[in-house]
């Protein structure tokens, strides 16, 4: 996955060609195509909405409307690695707030922020379904559980060099 502050239209079209070589243009596949774009670029932008809209024969505003509904389809600049810390009560009881502090400290941004190098975005997530192994977080599609502040920092460090 490449994340830069500017993604060229050519890159987007190439990736879209690539995705659509495996998927047909039925409306039901829209979410899956948007998910693939997020996997590749980290987020969705206007050019993507226009290009996807053209292929599907759907207005770009409609593409934006759909994407903006879902937490996992970010429509604003977002880092390569999305750190999602569970905010739900079971994780809170197990000191999830301390994990948040540790990670904020490690990457120098606050909740909702993205690091300048576009590597990390830090978000709250609702229940990740890991309540028996709280506190938990997701980094993209990987789940980390039974976190301690030290363990969380170590995990983040391992991503810094990726």
């Amino acid at each position, binding site marked *: 996955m490449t994340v830069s502050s500017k993604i060229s239209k050519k890159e987007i079209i190439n990736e879209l060609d690539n995705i659509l070589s495996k998927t047909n243009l039925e409306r039901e596949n829209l979410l899956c195509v948007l998910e693939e774009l997020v996997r590749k670029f980290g987020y969705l932008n206007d050019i993507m909405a226009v290009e996807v809209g053209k292929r599907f024969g759907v207005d770009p505003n409609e593409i934006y409307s759909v994407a903006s509904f879902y937490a996992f*389809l970010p429509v604003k600049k977002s880092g390569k690695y999305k750190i999602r810390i569970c905010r739900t009560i079971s994780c809170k009881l197990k000191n999830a707030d301390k994990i948040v502090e540790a990670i904020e400290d490690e990457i120098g941004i606050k909740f909702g922020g993205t690091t300048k190098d576009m590597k990390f975005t830090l978000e709250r997530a609702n229940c990740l379904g890991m309540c028996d192994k709280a506190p938990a977080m997701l980094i993209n599609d*990987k789940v980390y559980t039974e976190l301690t502040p030290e363990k969380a920092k170590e995990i983040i460090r391992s991503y810094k060099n990726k």
Partner: protein
Amino acid sequence: MPAAGFVLEKRKQGEALKKAFEINRAEITDMIKDSGLKGRGGAGFPTGLKMYLCGAAADTIKYVICNADEGEPGTFKDRVILETVPEKVFEGMAITAYVIGAKEGIIYLRGEYEYLKAGLENTLDGMRKNNLLGEKILGGNFDFDIKIVLGAGAYVCGEETALIESLEGKRGEAKNKPPFPVSSGLFCHPTLVSNVETFCNIPHIVTEGAQWFKNIGSEKSAGTKLVSVSGDVKKPGVYEIPFGMKVKDLLKLVEAGNTKAVDIGGASGIVIPESQFDREISFEDIPTGGSVIVFDKTRKMIDVMENFMEFFLDESCGQCTPCREGTKYFVDAVEKIKNGRITDQELKNLRDISNCMKLTSKCGLGQSSTNAFISILDNFKEELLS
């Protein structure tokens, strides 16, 4: 785990499907009806009736959807089922498809569980190789296959009409019912949507019979329930309990100590104090989709309230006014309670608004979003308003 446990047990693959092929469709529907199996996602709709309605709908195209969008705070039992016995869920879906006359199955897997997808694909491949899925299953005339679709992080998509909208590539906004999905669901074709755990029960009922199933549980709640226990307990995890188990017995099982309150049903459920621990987990008393969160005496109930109300504000899809405006109103109310600035009149208004949301919200999210608030207010009034 009590002796009743079977949902997470491995069993011989294909055995139930084979037996289903030997019985006629109407008989299986009756069997599921007689068993008293009700939906395990939380709403508790009778599964046999759903099968009957979807089977009776006249259409050549029908769908079976497994709702694996487990998002209720404190619930993780579907994850454990999908990690342990996914093949039983798929077999349950195949039997259901055979009964109602569907050829396509979809499992809607929440985006947060993307890491389970590869394993589930493997299981599906294995079943295809063993001729339990695909064309001419077990050499008969029945074709059925299942695909996995990933959600994208929206709690409301666990509501069946919202889930269907999402599968159609749209915003996951709930729709007015009727029509119900059993008559007009995915792409306007009859669609049976059920929870992971519900499908997992079906192969057992088909092989062991309705009476065997009815013998487990309580009078109006047949079978067992998987509950996900978390919070202040020594042994958090998934427990399979017969319906009708008392809360205090469950607390013993999970080794909870110094317990002050238990939330049953997650953010949309209710929070009960010690004086109600002899109540039962069942459809006739306290139903749950699977979430049980335990709080010990060091916890403040206002924090629980705040967490749940913020959750609903965050997850309300915003299309219908009572839910969109109401959830905000309740978050503000929590703030007022925290600052000791809430008046009796405001509390009375909140109850009215809660009733209004229950009556007029389009889907279960808005309808149930104030349950926790009201139950905490009723059960912990002194602590809250002191």
